[in-house]
């Protein structure tokens, strides 16, 4: 490290920073720094994705090795679309997704506004908001499964003490859907709340004060001023929430194993069952490709038409 001969000249040169001493070019340095990430993502994301694509167009039945693995055209997809279980799972995934994503925003935004209030209990509120987000989805499902228990669950105890009838929550399809939505919204509104909360920290206080001075009601300043400012954070939350709702597996698996009567059989559950019940990897891969394409399509739609960029 030789000393700079003329520091002033160096300062003038700042805009395109030129580092001294046999450095690699930017592109070469970038290549070496990104190589480990590229290898990991390539080997453990891209390669699996390519093999799943390949399998989805081939026969691949583990239980019938005599068939070999011949090219199968789009037959796996044709059979998939013809299967009532696929259509049921697709429908379940979509409508449970709409219910839980909408629910997580309806709950998540208000709890972020509450947790953002100054006061003595701010830290406590923040931990209450973070807890469901940080908890394994499986744990949330198991905790609620016990609270929704038909005989000894605390929710039925509250219902009976109000003079209402106890319900068979996890055994009746429509009630299981309700229970699933409660667990999922409890768990995921915390994520929406978290992103909203971090969005709120970037909102300058004087803007809201200016709105108040201009005579806007709290309600107006929320809709007209705050919400547009939060839009970037909320649109990111919407994309992430939608993707995780499409892929949902842990909660229905731990809550009712997809039952009762397939009420909670989502695409994720159906793929898992296709893999472990029939060992038909051609069929399961077709489902995986469909799930991935669905996520891509919806995200593309959001980015193109909702965010407008």
């Amino acid at each position: 490290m030789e000393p700079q001969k003329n520091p002033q000249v160096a300062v003038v040169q700042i805009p395109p920073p030129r580092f001294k001493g046999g450095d690699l070019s930017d592109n070469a340095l970038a290549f070496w720094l990104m190589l480990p990430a590229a290898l990991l993502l390539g080997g453990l994301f891209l390669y699996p994705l390519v093999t799943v694509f390949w399998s989805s167009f081939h026969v691949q039945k583990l239980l019938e090795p005599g068939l070999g693995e011949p090219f199968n055209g789009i037959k796996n997809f044709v059979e998939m679309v013809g299967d009532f279980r696929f259509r049921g799972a697709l429908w379940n995934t979509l409508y449970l997704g709409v219910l839980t994503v909408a629910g997580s925003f309806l709950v998540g935004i208000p709890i972020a506004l509450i947790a953002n209030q100054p006061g003595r209990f701010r830290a406590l509120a923040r931990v209450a908001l973070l807890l469901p987000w940080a908890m394994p989805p499986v744990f949330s499902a198991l905790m609620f499964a016990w609270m929704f228990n038909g005989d000894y669950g605390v929710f039925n105890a509250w219902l009976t003490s109000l003079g209402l009838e106890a319900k068979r929550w996890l055994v009746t399809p429509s009630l299981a859907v309700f229970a699933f939505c409660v667990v999922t919204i409890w768990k995921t509104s915390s994520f929406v709340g978290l992103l909203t909360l971090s969005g709120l920290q970037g909102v300058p206080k004087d803007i809201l004060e200016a709105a108040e001075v201009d005579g806007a009601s709290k309600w107006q300043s929320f809709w007209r001023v705050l919400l547009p400012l939060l839009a970037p954070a909320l649109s990111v939350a919407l994309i992430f929430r939608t993707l995780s709702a499409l892929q949902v597996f842990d909660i229905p698996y731990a809550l009712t194993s997809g039952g009762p009567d397939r009420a909670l059989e989502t695409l994720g559950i159906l793929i898992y069952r296709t893999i472990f019940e029939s060992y038909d990897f051609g069929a399961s891969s077709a489902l995986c490709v469909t799930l991935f394409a669905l996520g891509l399509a919806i995200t593309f739609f959001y980015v193109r038409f909702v965010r407008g960029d």
Partner: protein
Amino acid sequence: MEAAEELRKEPFSAKFWRSLGLIALVLGGFFPLVWTILTSLKSETELQTKPITYLPHIWKWDNYVQVFQAKPFLNFFLNSLITSSVSTILCVIIAAMAAYPLARLNIKNKGLIMSSVVVFSMIPVIAMMVPLYKIMTHFSLINTYPALILPYTALSLPVAILTLTAFFTSIPSELESAAMVDGCSKVGALRKIILPLALPGLVTAGILVFVNSWNEFLLALSLNTRLEMRTVSVGVTLYQGEFAFPFALMSAAITIAMIPIIILIIVFQKRIVSGLTAGSVKG
């Protein structure tokens, strides 16, 4: 002080609604865990009596001993701790290396690289399950730590890269220029100037990765199937027998498995909230 004054000049009704909201948030957020802790301290017979009890009649601390005797819970816990910690360290280092050129260097195809990172984060984990199983079998890694550590590192890489790219971008580049004046190389500037300033970002990214790995269920369920190699997220579900559902034991297991997560969010609550903005709003 300012906040306190604001609270004082507020009308009573606003104060009332504000407190009510706060109480609802705190009760709603904590109740399931509190109920689980209470359940973990009751006996199975007490859990199966009507009307149900709220506080345990007899505090059955023995459940916490039983958890370790009925299943190898110590293994579950240590397995989770090892896979989550190692994947966190690996992921943060690799993501920091990838994020630095994205934030700082003048390279080709930056936009393309960023978009492919985002697309990677959209691949369903369940689509990778069978191929990953084949890869791990091929390298004889099934039922070893790397079988989970490698996929967990890869799974969190996209979000860690996005978070850290945003963090590095937010550090003023004049500081690097200053380092240049002092005769630092690019790598030297990264090590001496950028890394210390980005430490908060590295911590946030680390927390996100750790939580992801600790909570992961699907790959843990299908890749490491030997009982002693299970992680807590799967291990907790293994207490249920064919007919019996020992909720007290499962609750005790959940409570223990939540301890690292609870410590993390209490210690780093501010970090997590401010760190997420940077990472996700970017994408």
